[in-house]
């Protein structure tokens, strides 16, 4: 069992997500940064979509009530076990009574803690990913106790070397309503820098505005990574917990790798968009 001593800013349990329910309005949810989460799971010999902890900006303090093998990947939150620094991107043996503390992020916005065996929480509609009104809680709270599915045999044979890359460009495809943009807007999109404003698991808002007055469309399917343009010229990049349909024009679509990268960025960070073809 793992006990939450301090929950951090926004610590959740995520997995590969809830599939097959978007038609009745249930978001997919799941890992924000799939690449980092998959790496965390692979290092402890879990299936890549196994449930794990997702940490945002300020890390939690967790106490281990058993012997486990864990891994920490993604952004660097200066992880300490019993106050001593531990290495990320490799298996770590923790013992009963050990305490893991993650601090404020040094780089990146999210990190992942996988436990060999996975986490034993209720699966709803095929997923353990936290989501409001679906799972009992939307984020972990102080004193929550999370069971581990299988006790690890401490037999980690080998693991691939993974690394964490920041400073990538945001690659986008044209969205279904790309041609509602003026040529001036199209130029701006790929020439200018954009600043990240408020953001969460549902969406990343951008500060700089584009053309004003673009009419809404008939409510249509959207995806994590869809870039919506509101009538006021605001751009919204949808993320993993986004709604399933929307009425704003879908001007761009991030590729999956850029969506993973975006989830490592925070307010005031700058991005540059690069148009690519599928």
């Amino acid at each position, binding site marked *: 069992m793992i006990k939450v001593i301090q929950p951090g800013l926004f610590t959740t349990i995520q997995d590969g997500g809830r*599939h097959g329910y978007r038609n009745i309005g249930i978001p997919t949810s799941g890992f924000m940064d799939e690449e980092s989460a998959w790496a965390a799971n692979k290092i402890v010999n879990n299936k890549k979509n196994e449930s794990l902890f997702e940490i945002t900006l300020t890390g939690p303090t967790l106490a281990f009530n058993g012997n486990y093998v864990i891994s920490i990947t993604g952004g660097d939150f200066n992880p300490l076990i019993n106050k001593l620094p531990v290495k990320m991107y490799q298996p770590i043996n923790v013992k009963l009574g050990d305490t893991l503390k993650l601090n404020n992020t040094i780089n990146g916005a999210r990190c992942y803690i996988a436990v060999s065996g996975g986490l034993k929480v209720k699966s709803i509609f095929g997923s353990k990913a936290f989501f409001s009104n679906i799972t009992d809680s939307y984020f972990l709270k102080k004193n929550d106790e999370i069971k581990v599915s299988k006790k690890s045999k401490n037999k980690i044979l080998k693991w691939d070397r993974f690394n964490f890359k920041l400073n990538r460009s945001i690659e986008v495809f044209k969205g279904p309503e790309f041609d509602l943009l003026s040529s001036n807007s199209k130029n701006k999109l790929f020439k200018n820098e954009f600043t990240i404003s408020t953001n969460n698991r549902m969406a990343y808002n951008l500060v700089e505005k584009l053309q004003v007055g673009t009419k809404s469309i008939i409510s*249509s399917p959207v995806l994590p*990574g869809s870039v919506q343009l509101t009538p006021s010229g605001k751009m919204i990049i949808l993320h993993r917990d986004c709604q399933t349909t929307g009425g704003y024009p879908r001007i761009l679509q991030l590729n999956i790798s850029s969506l993973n990268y975006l989830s490592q960025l925070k307010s005031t960070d700058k991005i540059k968009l690069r148009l690519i073809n599928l």
Partner: protein
Amino acid sequence: MEGNPKTYFVFNERSILISYNCPTNSKLISNISNTKKRIVTHMNDCIVDIVQSINSILVIFDRTKISADDLIKKLKRIEDTEDDLSKYNKIWQIPVCYDFKYAVDLENLAKEKKLSPSEIINIHKSKIYDVLSMGFLPGFMYMGFTDEKLHCERKEIPSLNIKKGSIGIALNQTCIYSQDSPGGWHIIGISPLDFFDLKSKNPCFAKPGDKIQFIEISSKKYQQMKKENSVKPIYK
């Protein structure tokens, strides 16, 4: 639906968007919902998720099982001719209480539309609607299309707390709030039914493509049904 202009758009590495470029009406809704069913039946093994909306279908696929090009080829082969699949689309009878106690925006809307509240109620309940799509909240239903007399913009200032079961109208559509939620639709009634059941394998009884008929009930009946808690929706 032969001859209808359709486009296949590669939305991202894992998704194809099928868009129908034709008038949005009841016939289109039923054709889209039949096509969706056929895609699910014939290609279940490579499809991860599928979303039906008013004039499009989004297909999310498993890249390890099929490529986007092959998927489009297969999708094109699934002919969406009209057939008797529509008989599986149910008509759900939904009890609605239009009492002012719950219909918090009815009076204002009536003024705005220069109709009496009872005229609005009568127009609203006299039609059978298509479930166009679901979204916004788990189980939130968009239904259409409403009589032209009821067409209206969303409220300028959204309400912060709309009660579960509330029936709203905006644009050319009507909706049901499946959970307590903020929202911008004009609320003209409430239903005692549960529209989203977490404990069920099939959490929503109605699906896009089904039809909805509103049956007016009294405030007393509403409270009674609400108390009974186990009222099951009926369909024809």
